[in-house]
């Protein structure tokens, strides 16, 4: 045997759980052949809190704040999905005023989530500047949440049946001002990144996931749209009055990391369009539907999903007719999108792994629940 230690052998490397580029406590076991990734395995569950078990031991109303702790950078979306699901189970609908305000806050949250994604993703790639810009603009959106409901991150903005709070004086104007302020900044980010040579070389043809694979792996959200599938639940199965607003679904063809970046940037612009339309004409009237004080849905089950910033966020709720849900299942987009990581990074370089984890836009609070 003439083998020496210079012979190439497979190397198993641990990335995480404490790693700045895994966006939380994600551990990826990477199998390497030289610098090439030949396989990965994700180890998750470090943030598992048993949210679904907690739900079975709380009333419907008591559980609502917990959902904000899953995808904590898009807590408004989580709350909206949960409220819509329970409302469907109760067969009530939020009044038009509540729906419009819900849309505004959810879209603000989508922008905030995409901004945080852009900042951290760019940081992973090596561009430090966008992070500070993104955090600066995100602050304005969080300020609106704070003024509206008192919380910035885990907002608990909505209630089953509508809204707990009326909007404050000048809410609409502040939302419109935010939109006006944001658009030039999105142009700025694109000017910094889109044609940047390093940015393009690090992203183009990295982590390719075509439409077939996206469907096979259940990947939704911007990742699916970057692969050329024009599918958005806001258009396909509209909820909360999204059918009233005029907006586009941005798509790209290649399904690589660069396309996902472009899609998310475009989505921010579309969210601005929705906010502008909604804030210009919030209907008057009550903000809360007639919901009984003690929420006791009839025996039944329902699955309701929304287009969260990361993909399809669904709630499957089974009621046994009591005040506590028999079962709540959350379909977390990050969890299912993360499963495609292995498919995306096989054959790429270990340095690309960081870019690919970043482009999935995972929040471990949601992956582990």
């Amino acid at each position, binding site marked *: 045997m003439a083998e020496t230690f210079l012979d190439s052998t497979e190397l198993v490397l641990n990335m995480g759980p404490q790693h700045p580029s895994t966006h939380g406590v994600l551990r990826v076991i990477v199998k390497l052949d030289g610098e090439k990734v030949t396989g990965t395995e994700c180890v998750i569950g470090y943030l598992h809190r048993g949210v679904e078990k907690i739900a079975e031991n709380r009333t419907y109303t008591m559980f609502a704040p917990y959902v904000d702790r899953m995808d904590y950078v898009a807590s408004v979306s989580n709350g909206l999905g949960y409220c819509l699901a329970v409302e469907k189970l109760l067969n009530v609908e939020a009044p038009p005023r509540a729906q419009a305000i819900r849309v505004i806050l959810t879209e603000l949250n989508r922008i905030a989530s995409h901004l945080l994604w852009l900042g951290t993703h760019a940081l992973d790639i090596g561009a430090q500047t966008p992070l500070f810009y993104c955090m600066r603009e995100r602050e304005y959106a969080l300020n609106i949440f704070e003024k509206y409901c008192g919380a910035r991150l885990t907002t608990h903005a909505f209630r089953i049946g509508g809204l707990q709070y009326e909007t404050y004086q000048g809410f609409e104007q502040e939302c419109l001002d935010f939109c006006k302020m944001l658009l030039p900044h999105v142009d700025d980010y694109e000017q910094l990144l889109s044609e940047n040579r390093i940015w393009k070389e690090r992203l183009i043809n990295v982590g390719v996931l075509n439409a077939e694979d996206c469907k096979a792996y259940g990947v939704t959200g911007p990742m699916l749209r970057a692969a050329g599938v024009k599918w958005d639940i806001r258009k396909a199965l509209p909820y909360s009055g999204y059918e009233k607003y005029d907006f586009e679904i941005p798509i790209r063809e290649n399904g690589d990391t660069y396309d996902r970046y472009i899609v998310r940037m475009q989505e921010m612009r579309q969210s601005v369009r929705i906010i502008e339309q909604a804030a210009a004409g919030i209907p008057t009237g009550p903000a809360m539907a007639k919901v009984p004080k003690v929420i006791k849905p009839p025996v039944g089950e329902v699955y309701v999903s929304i287009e969260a910033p990361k993909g399809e966020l669904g709630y499957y709720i089974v009621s046994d007719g009591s005040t506590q849900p028999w*079962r709540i299942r959350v379909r977390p987009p990050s969890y299912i999108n993360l499963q495609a990581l292995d498919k995306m990074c096989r054959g790429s370089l270990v340095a690309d792994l960081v870019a690919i984890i970043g482009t999935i836009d995972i929040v471990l609070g949601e992956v582990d629940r």
Partner: protein
Amino acid sequence: MPEDPKPDAPQPEAPKPETPKPAPPPAAAKPPAGAPPKPAAAAPKAPAVMAATPWEDDLTKQLVDAFPSRIPEFFSYLGQNFLISPPGSVPEIVDYLKRECGFDYLVDITAVHYPERPEAFDVVYILYSFSRNVRIRVKTRLMDGEPIESIVWVHPTANWLEREVFDMFGIRFANHPDLKRILMPDEWEGHPLRKDYSILKMDRRWVQENLGIESGQ
């Protein structure tokens, strides 16, 4: 004055012939006359089962034709359609739905535990068709400890979803490529989302060995 005796007079008369008429039949079954309305009023308040209506359209007809020997049951509740199939047919039905009916996106797999029922578990597959823009659920009932065939070969998404169901409920998926725990630690004992697993329960041995503390509470 002349009108007063008139309503007075027929009133005692009217109930008198009415009460003996319905009285004999319930007298045999239920002695008090007020008893029949009571269960009638209580029934709509808390029905023990879901008020699902039958679901019938082109898709259900196609499925009945395709699976004549194992006819699934079709229901609709709040406008959401689902079918209940025997556990053995699930992979074939899901595969058929994917190939022939365009249900190419597996949204979710989950389970629900009913410890009172002989078939203790509902396994629920949520499917969506991009071409039809329709979402359906395939449900099946399983005994505790009974394995179910994995559908990873139909939808690769099912890999982690089935692992999670196994982790949380202890339902085994036969022919799964890598069936192991996903959210809980590998050595953990017990499956937390089962109804007999109390919210305060934990694997004390694991906590003591791995965290070096007496209890996680």
